[in-house]
């Protein structure tokens, strides 16, 4: 019975904290780091593009310049600070209607530091290009 408050606290803490990004890559990019990518995001699109550019991706502003579509889905706001919001975030790199790489994470978005958009962008970049770096 004494364990109940501890378990409850554990649930509350895990629900309100960051989750380290998990990245899965099915196909590497044909042009490597120079592959142009178009970003679609219904929320925080500019922040997503900026984070991806900073990580090293070649993000283009016109969809016809890219065969790859990176869909960023930012989930419901779970907490709010002056710098941004706490969200679940999903990156899906799409090619010809299928997902070729996916990253999932949870953390603070907007201008907050640490920032889950920045972390996930870097993790996705590392996972996609780590073979080329080595």
């Amino acid at each position, binding site marked *: 019975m004494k364990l109940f408050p501890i378990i409850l606290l554990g649930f509350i803490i895990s629900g309100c904290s960051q989750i380290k990004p998990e990245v899965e890559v099915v196909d590497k990019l044909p042009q490597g780091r120079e592959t142009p990518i*178009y970003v*679609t*995001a*219904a*929320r925080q*699109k500019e922040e997503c593009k900026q984070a991806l550019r900073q990580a090293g991706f070649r993000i283009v502003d*016109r*969809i*016809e310049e890219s065969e790859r*579509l990176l*869909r*960023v*889905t*930012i*989930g*419901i*706001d779970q907490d709010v600070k002056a710098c941004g919001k706490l969200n679940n975030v999903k990156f899906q790199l*799409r090619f010809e*209607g299928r997902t070729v790489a996916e990253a999932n994470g949870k953390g603070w978005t907007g201008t907050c530091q640490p920032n889950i958009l920045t972390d996930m962008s870097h993790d996705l970049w590392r996972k996609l290009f780590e073979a080329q770096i080595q």
Partner: protein
Amino acid sequence: MKNFQSHLQKTGSALLAATLTSGCAYVTEGTKLGPITPPANSVQPFVEHSVSDFSFSLEGGKMVTSNFAGKLINENVLNAWVDRHYIRDQEYVENEAFTGKADYNLTLTGSQYGDSSIGMQILSGLTLFLFPYTVTTNYDIQFTLADVKTGKMYTGSVEESNKAYVELFLLFALPFTVNNESAMFERIGDHLYDQLYRQGAFQPVSSDK
């Protein structure tokens, strides 16, 4: 007669969207795009349209499929184009299986996200919609337009957002909802049309080309 059919179709799809989204909702007009007047055109082409890589996410559950949501956006925007005489007519084709009979083939890609508190939805459901909840919908829409004769490609992109208030007695707000939704899709349509037109789409081909 065609205008009346188009108006009926447009009203029907807006009603269906409103009903699927809520049941009894007041939807605002959209907050990001200002009104513009695109250049007048002399040709009114026939456009076939389809949905490519489009995703609709709604917090608290999926009510409609991504493809259906994309088709609704296309129909709303293209019906607005017909009403404004930017195009002659439009037709939806499944899975980008364009027939080649149209002047232009249009493909939608992008994302739509419905943001709503699950707790408020449950509370509203428990009180039989007496207690209201809101759904904020964000759109990131890309149109890729291909000239069937020349193969030339044009693209347009807009972001928009609107808010739906869901409550039992908002059933009486349905006419305003339909009107606001129409106004929002007209503005989305104007911006997309304007971008495509300025790249050279929907214009007569000059003889020296």
